[in-house]
């Protein structure tokens, strides 16, 4: 196995990582305890928020362009302060983004700490539906990018398997709508979750799997990222990606070594 040069394309998110952009359909991010992929969600969030080229600048209220997708982040495992800290290191200001309507953050932990029972999946679904529909004001977009962190934590709120299947179906339905995407982080080292993970993977257009290195993390590499593109990056309207993004959208599997730093991750594509 040789470490080859990175395959740069117009869809590169980090130094060397090529993914379809914008994300379409269902995207499954899978990790394990030895190689967590929470950083990958931050990576994808940053890519989604900087798609328009406005970078970290807070947009004045009411000037949301119809081309911008509504970004909804369901934080089930971490609090808003965690995302504020990590996004700040990535060059984004979370409070400004929320105030400008670019990002809608749905927090689960404050509701979990409140008096009474934990919120049910129906309650969570209602919160997500309200966040996805938005206020319908001027400039609001009908396209949605739903990011869930993480599905395994949400699973403990399910009262039964049917409840959980219905919730997953609702999330994947969002991702399969034209111009929309659903990004879900799940832990692949839970044996009992293999069944619904397999169903989710079958419906996914893009699967990102973080794996630990056999020799453990080193100074040059933290882990491996396997990228499986299962579908050509077409939106629900049948539009095909243009330009250099077509190469990144080609179905296939690619493997990268990634090195994590506080400001982000760098990638080197592995070539056999």
């Amino acid at each position, binding site marked *: 196995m040789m470490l080859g040069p990175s395959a740069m394309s117009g869809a590169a998110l980090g130094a060397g990582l090529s993914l379809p952009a914008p994300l379409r359909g269902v995207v499954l991010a899978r990790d394990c305890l030895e190689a967590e992929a929470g950083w990958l969600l931050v990576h994808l969030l940053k890519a989604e928020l900087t798609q328009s080229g406005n970078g970290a600048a807070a947009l004045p209220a009411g000037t949301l362009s119809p081309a911008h997708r509504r970004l909804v982040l369901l934080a089930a495992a971490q609090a808003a302060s965690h995302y504020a800290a990590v996004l700040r290191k990535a060059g984004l200001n979370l409070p400004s983004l929320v105030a400008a309507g670019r990002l809608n953050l749905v927090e689960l*932990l404050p509701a979990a700490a409140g008096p009474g029972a934990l919120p049910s999946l129906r309650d969570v679904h209602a919160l997500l539906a309200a966040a996805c529909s938005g206020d319908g004001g001027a400039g609001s977009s009908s396209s949605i990018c739903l990011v869930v962190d993480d599905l395994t934590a949400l699973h403990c709120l399910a009262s039964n398997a049917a409840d959980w299947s219905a919730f997953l179906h609702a999330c994947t339905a969002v991702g399969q709508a034209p111009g929309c995407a659903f990004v879900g982080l799940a832990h692949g080292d*839970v044996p009992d979750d293999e069944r619904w993970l397999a169903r989710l993977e079958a419906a996914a257009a893009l699967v990102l799997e973080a794996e630990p290195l056999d020799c453990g993390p080193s100074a040059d590499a933290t882990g491996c990222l396997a990228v499986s593109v299962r579908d050509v990056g077409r939106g629900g309207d049948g539009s095909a990606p243009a330009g250099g993004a077509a190469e990144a959208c080609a179905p296939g599997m690619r493997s990268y070594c990634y090195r994590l730093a506080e400001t982000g991750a760098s990638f080197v594509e592995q070539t056999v």
Partner: protein
Amino acid sequence: MRQGSFVRKGAAPAADPGTRPGLHGQTLLSLGQADLDRLLGGGLPLGALLLLLDDGWSGHAATLLRYFLAEGAACGQSLLLAAAPAPAGGLPAFVPPQLKRGSAVDKDEEGGEEHVGRLAVLSLGSLGWQATPQPGTGVFSSGGGSASGGGTGASAGTAVLRTLLQLKGTLRDRRCAAVVSVPAMLFSPSDLARMQHLADGVVALESVADGSDIARLAPDPASVAGLLHLRKPPALGTTSRPAPDVALHLVRHRRRRLAITPVEIDPDAEVADAEATSGAGRSAASALCGGPPKPHGGALDF
């Protein structure tokens, strides 16, 4: 001579006793055991939940919880201990002597600064916490302790997961930290995996058999009391989790206190063990060169 242009306005705020500043803007809480603090990168961040997976034989989880509470009592911090059933010897024997005098009192005054607090949960999910069947229905529901149950049919593992989620929500953005011990042998591998993902930090404690290789080959084997595996260092507000240099450590009894040291192999003990296994006497060549030549003419191994 002033080197820079920054001028401090007023005196720097004094750190709360028992806390220290950490990386990434975190405030770290001492766990009362210096070796464990060093292992976790200086301490437990405020707002974090540390999970201790106990194999049920070592008993070191309870000892570490006592250290945690004792440190909080010594620093005058607010303490809360939840245990069901009561620890061996009763609760009075478990809590630090300072607590018996009532020196640690929660004085959360309105408008005042939030005090640093510590929450310790002993054996979450053990017999006293487990779900109890509803009479006549055969359906299990939550009962006892503070384990919050889900709806009808929630298993003990799901109840513990929900409790951890509630604890996490309680701790976040608050000036307190929690250490929760869970008897790992009571739960399925799936529930344990979910618990480890949910917690901010995970430490697994195992007992060591007297005749095991680690006990025989470690330096000072008489002091070896157990194994400690740092599976997940706590990290809040960071992109990358710090990777420990050594994940596996030995828990030792040294002069009536616990010590946590990295796993090391005594080379003399290893050689003696290898010779005892092979059954051969010690030749002059082995004494001088580290071993006789291999009978099959194998390649030199430096």
